[in-house]
């Protein structure tokens, strides 16, 4: 199967460790169950164990347990990236809000291709999502190493082209 082979290639490049990712998925699902229920009776804990087991088993059968389906290997790098992203999102929010309430509506919509230096689909997805999460820029299409971006203003467009977000996301990915 073509898709399967492509998957194998990508997995080899990023170190395919199914047990590591399966255990990570188990822990994440168990934590989610405990935190969402907040009950610690035997029956509910047993149901939780059953649910986690069923989910992981289905995910394994669907061949989803790898660096893409369960990207726990970048957890710490991603957590270090989040504060910077939050700061950028806040700055962009204030900028867009100011333009919305300005009677003159000072916008200059732009569409352009931004280079994405990430090596994996996961990294590119992370970068495209970061662009979209930042108000004023939305990624509208994703090709190999190129993201098509729609920006509300030329300033926002230049901010993306400057490439700091691209470099930081590549660094997150590089921790793999």
């Amino acid at each position, binding site marked *: 199967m073509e898709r399967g082979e492509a998957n194998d290639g990508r997995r080899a490049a990023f170190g395919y460790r199914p047990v590591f990712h399966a255990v990570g998925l188990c822990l994440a699902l168990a934590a989610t169950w405990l935190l969402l229920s907040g009950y610690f009776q035997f029956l509910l804990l047993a149901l939780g164990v059953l649910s986690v087991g069923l989910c992981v088993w289905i995910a394994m059968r669907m061949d989803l347990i790898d660096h893409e389906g369960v990207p726990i290997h970048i957890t710490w790098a991603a957590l270090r990236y989040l504060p910077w992203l939050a700061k950028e999102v*806040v700055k962009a929010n204030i900028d867009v809000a100011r333009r*919305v309430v300005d009677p003159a509506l000072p*916008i*200059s*919509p732009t*569409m352009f291709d931004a280079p994405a230096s990430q090596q994996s689909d996961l990294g590119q997805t992370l970068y*495209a999502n*970061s662009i979209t999460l930042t108000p004023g820029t939305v*990624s509208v299409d994703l090709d190999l190493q190129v993201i098509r971006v729609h920006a509300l203003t030329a300033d926002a467009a230049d901010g993306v082209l400057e490439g700091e977000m691209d470099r930081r996301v590549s660094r997150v990915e590089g921790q793999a």
Partner: protein
Amino acid sequence: MSLALDAASWLLLLAGGAFVIIGAVGLIRMPDFFTRLHPAGLTDTMGAGLILLGLLLQAGWTIVAVKLAIIAVFLLFTSPTSSHATARAALAAGLRPLLTGEAGKEKDRAP
């Protein structure tokens, strides 16, 4: 709950509400589909974020706080994904964006 915490919480809730309203106003004021996506982002990010923070202060160190944090994480992944899907679908369906600005003008001017 102390008065300071309550005041901070209300300030965050009001600020979040303001961003939601500005987002809605922007949605109406923007000229075309693609530009409308941007103020919609205000509602998803600062609007929802500040309101969740305000509610987090109301919840204190309880399991409710954890659930609010989980909502924030879900929003972090779902809101850009749905924005991207909407924009991509519009582009694929042949909708052309209204463009007036140009990115990287300085670079183009270089000899």
